């Protein structure tokens, strides 16, 4: 619902500049991303260090030519094993979802398949804005350096295992199936969003109220099943022994497109000396939708905005509202002749509010080269505001998990 909300404009709560340590390190071991920043004009914001820090990077990624896609790596092991392990890089860091999903083609380990009480394979049809990932739920020990999630349910995408090799019609009827490197743009998705499980109670209900994401797969075909909350694909951070209440994404600001951009993901909020919540504005989320509100050009889009590192641009509203034409060929991007400067105000469910500036450039020009990190990429998204990865550039964004105390506030929230 669009509610012109006049009384509630930001009192220009300027965000306190964050003191950032400029130690640049390999960040806590384990995640062996070997990306390098070549050139570019990144500055500020990045360079955390500690056992709870891993490096992340915007680069071309495993599918080559990725644009504004943020990657990390993870080490997974057969549950209980310290020798049957594999480090997988090129996982997209996604604050818009929860749960680890790995392409079968990138996986060499025999992980433990989750079964139902009748011994049938459990699989999932997980939805994203641009399609579905289909595949079996398996169990792995997942670690980022010393941070470890033991026996974590994860999704294997594009598996060729018996009974689950082909998505059922009830899954493929939801939209495009994303089951390979080309459709996923990554070796998998590292969902570190605001919820513990990807679905929660809605998938545990045994009735036609079930959300319908989980399947049991006997030889006769996969059918929707109720999946206990504890068995669902889960945000790995929530399984850590400590530092398990959320993450902070730190990416430097970027004044112009660059080949790559390196930053950090810090585990935990208010749990260590390097992840305190202090001075940031906390925007709590609607716990049902995972959204906040945004005011743009005098109109408030209530409960229709979200921060999503997994979206590769700022996707918002439409050509009429923004005053920018969409590109002729790439008509999912905006194509202003000159870069447009805007301001917007985010409003949390708790009423916290602050305005900020952002810019959108010409999508045709910006994507017509090999730059992977583009600070001003945007496109249409009628009635909805998706603060995608460019929003994270130059910010430390705190992502707190539902129900968990994180610093002086309780998740789900975003703070920056």
């Amino acid at each position, binding site marked *: *619902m*669009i509610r012109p909300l006049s009384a509630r404009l930001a009192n220009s709560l300027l965000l306190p500049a964050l003191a950032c340590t400029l130690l640049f390190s390999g960040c806590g071991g384990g995640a062996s991303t070997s990306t390098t920043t070549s050139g570019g004009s990144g500055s500020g914001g990045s360079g955390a260090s500690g056992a709870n820090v891993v490096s992340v990077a915007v680069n071309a*990624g495993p599918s080559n*030519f*990725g*644009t504004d*896609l943020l990657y990390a790596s993870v080490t997974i092991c057969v549950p209980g094993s310290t020798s049957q392990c594999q480090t997988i890089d090129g996982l*997209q860091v996604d604050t*818009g*979802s*929860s749960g680890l999903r790995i392409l079968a083609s990138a996986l060499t380990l025999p992980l433990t398949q989750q079964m139902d009480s009748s011994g049938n394979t459990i699989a999932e049809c997980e*939805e*994203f*804005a*641009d*399609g579905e990932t289909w595949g079996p739920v398996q169990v792995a020990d997942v670690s980022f350096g010393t941070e470890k999630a033991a026996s974590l349910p994860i999704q294997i995408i594009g598996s060729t295992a018996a009974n689950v090799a082909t998505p059922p*019609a*009830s899954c493929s*009827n*939801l*939209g*495009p199936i994303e089951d390979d490197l*080309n*459709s996923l*743009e990554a070796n998998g998705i590292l*969902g570190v*969003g605001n*919820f513990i499980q990807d679905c*929660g109670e*809605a998938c545990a209900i045994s009735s*036609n*109220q*079930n*959300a319908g*994401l989980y399947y049991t797969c006997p030889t006769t075909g996969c059918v929707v099943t109720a999946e206990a909350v504890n068995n669902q694909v889960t945000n790995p951070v929530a399984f850590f022994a400590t530092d398990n209440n959320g993450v902070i994404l730190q990416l430097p600001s970027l004044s112009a497109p660059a080949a790559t951009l390196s930053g950090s993901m810090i585990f935990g909020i208010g749990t260590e000396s390097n992840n305190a919540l202090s001075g940031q504005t906390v925007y709590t989320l609607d716990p*049902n939708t*995972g*959204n906040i509100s945004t005011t743009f050009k005098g109109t408030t889009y*209530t*409960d*229709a905005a*979200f921060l*999503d590192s*997994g*979206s*590769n641009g700022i*996707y918002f509203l*439409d050509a009429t509202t923004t005053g920018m034409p*969409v590109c002729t*060929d790439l*008509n*999912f991007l905006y194509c202003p002749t000159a870069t447009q400067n805007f301001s917007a105000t985010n409003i949390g469910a708790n009423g916290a509010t602050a305005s900020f500036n952002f810019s959108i450039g010409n999508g045709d020009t910006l*994507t017509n080269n090999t730059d992977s990190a583009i600070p001003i990429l945007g*496109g*249409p*998204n*009628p*009635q*909805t505001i*998706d603060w995608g990865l460019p929003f994270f550039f130059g910010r430390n964004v705190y992502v707190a998990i539902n129900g968990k105390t994180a610093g002086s506030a309780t998740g789900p929230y975003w703070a920056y």
Partner: protein
Amino acid sequence: MRRFSTRSFPLQTVFTLSVLVAAFALPRPLSASLGGDATSVESDRAKMQASLQTTNKDRYTVHEMHSPNNVTVREFVSPAGKVFGVAWQGPTRPDMQQLLGSYFDQFIQAAHTQKSQTKSRGPISINEPGLVVHSSGHQRYFVGQAYIPQMLPANVQAQEIQ
């Protein structure tokens, strides 16, 4: 008005003719929703096991369905009796094959084309001469609209399909 919350529907208050249709069996046409006859609304409702509420507006009729698992679909029917647009919102997407009917294959093809043009992840935005689709959201929240530009009744704006 932008969204139909799972908790409270912002109902347009004027011209409200609400009819809660019980789940009795109406004939189920093979042609499904988008671009189809108004009678195809019932096949969608049955598939969703949804309640149905019909609202007459100035230039069209809105058939709003709400499924037991909290997915809301609105189908927009022209005075000529054709479904010219559909919109959805919920913790999951509705069955798009059912909702888009004969346009589903075009939707899938166009979505793949979008990905092949630049390596992107995020909302699907399709603007083809005979089909517009916007699919957005994130885990636990999905929202979108689809319509056939040529079938929009006079003086109806695309923004109304939500």
